[in-house]
């Protein structure tokens, strides 16, 4: 019998959104042949949380979902202590989702000093400094199930993942979400004229799309294997970034007509020069509905 990799899914201050996202993984049976949850808050598992906190149970990977505060307890023990205890024995730690990585939405919770494992938004947090080398960050609200599962397989197969400054695997986070959106043509020619949910128009200019400055694979590894937010007609809300959630997610913040946040690595002068050129032309095809005659 092949050995299954033992995984502990620890839920901190969280909405279980990543758990639900994970349940949509399409090859779950296969996954469960290769991995075993010693504990998971929703799936039946071998041990109770009480066993986990009172004994030292063998474990290979620690998954943390949700934001972290010393004040927050599970089975009467501070989540920080549980993490400390298991982090020593595991091979890798994975922060699952934006809350566990950067604090995310639950950074606003009432608990004292709530943050991600190593980051409070962009700032480094030193509590778990010694674990930096062991950690992989998978941000996203929620994280895409394939990103999670493929990372776990990489760990199982001892593949070294190259990571970015926030410890996110470049394989999934070196791209911007803008990459692969079906609206790229509209972006190029600066045509927004979008109505939410419709196929036409790029939402960067007026409707708040953050994809050009958000790292992730949403338009490369589609959701439920069929679609992405931006393809479907909803702006990317930047859920993989330390700044998530920003305010006013459905409109583009501008300073005298210039978007406050520009595509990653594009300086203002370059952006405006290009914008000036493309704005000069009107492409009729892009102003029309795609299917109406």
């Amino acid at each position: 019998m092949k050995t299954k990799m033992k995984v502990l899914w620890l839920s901190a201050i969280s909405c279980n959104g990543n758990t639900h996202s994970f349940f949509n993984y399409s090859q779950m049976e296969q996954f469960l042949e290769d991995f075993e949850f010693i504990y998971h808050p929703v799936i039946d598992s071998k041990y109770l949380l009480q066993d986990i906190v009172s004994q030292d149970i063998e474990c290979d990977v620690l998954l943390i979902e949700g934001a972290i505060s010393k004040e927050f307890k599970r089975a009467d023990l501070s989540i920080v202590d549980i993490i400390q205890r298991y982090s020593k024995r595991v091979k890798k730690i994975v922060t699952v989702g934006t809350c566990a990585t950067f604090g995310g939405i639950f950074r606003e919770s009432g608990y004292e000093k709530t943050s991600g494992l190593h980051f409070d938004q962009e700032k480094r947090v030193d509590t778990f400094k010694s674990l930096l080398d062991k950690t992989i960050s998978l941000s996203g609200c929620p994280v895409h199930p394939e990103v999670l599962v493929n990372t776990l397989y990489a760990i199982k197969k001892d593949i070294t993942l190259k990571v970015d400054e926030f410890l996110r695997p470049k394989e999934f986070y070196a791209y911007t979400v803008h990459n692969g959106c079906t609206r790229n043509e509209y972006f190029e020619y600066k045509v927004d004229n979008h109505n939410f949910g419709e196929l036409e128009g790029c939402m960067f200019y007026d409707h708040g799309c953050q994809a050009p400055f958000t790292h992730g694979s949403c338009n490369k590894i589609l959701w439920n294997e069929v679609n992405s937010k931006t393809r479907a007609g909803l702006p990317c809300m930047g859920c993989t970034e330390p700044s998530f959630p920003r305010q006013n997610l459905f409109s583009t913040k501008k300073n005298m007509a210039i978007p406050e946040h520009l595509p990653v690595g594009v300086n203002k002068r370059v952006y405006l020069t290009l914008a000036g050129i493309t704005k000069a032309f009107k492409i009729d095809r892009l102003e029309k509905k795609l299917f109406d005659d």
Partner: protein
Amino acid sequence: MLDKKQLKKEQIIECALELFASRGFYSTTIPDIAKSLKMSVGNMYNYFKSKDILASEIIKYISVYLGKKLREINEEDISTKEKTRKIVEMYFKTASVKPEMIDYFLRIYLSNREVFRDTCEGMLCVNEFVTEIMIYFEEGVRCGDLREQDFFSAFGLFMGYLGGMVFLKGEDILPKDLNEYVEDITYNIYKALSSQ
């Protein structure tokens, strides 16, 4: 080699600017320009294939010239109010040392749009200049000095005002030198755009 050709092009542009300013745009021909540069008309066409092309190259030349000056101001570490003053000063200075440039911009480019229709769609030929003005506005709003508003309402206020003053000067209507208005005009523009 390229530099030499570029230099010659600039010479032609400078000469054409002067002739357009003194004799008028429509009554100045390519042969006139060639003659005053002691060039053959045939050679002249090696540089600019038509008068319309020359006309749009001139406006680009002016836009690059003004854009460069504006960029220097934008890159200075000074308040938006100071930048406003420097832009006004720069514009008036250009109007007095290179009057034919501003004259061309106001009287030829803005008044004969049909000449520029094919080569200068939208603001294509004045991109460098407009880009820097946008950066001035954007940075002003971002740091809280200027009020957020539509770009064109701000642009029209700023450039329309400056253009109007230079126009009055050109018509010999202004009683004083342009420089004497810098203080008041800066105050007016800044007050109109400011977030206070």
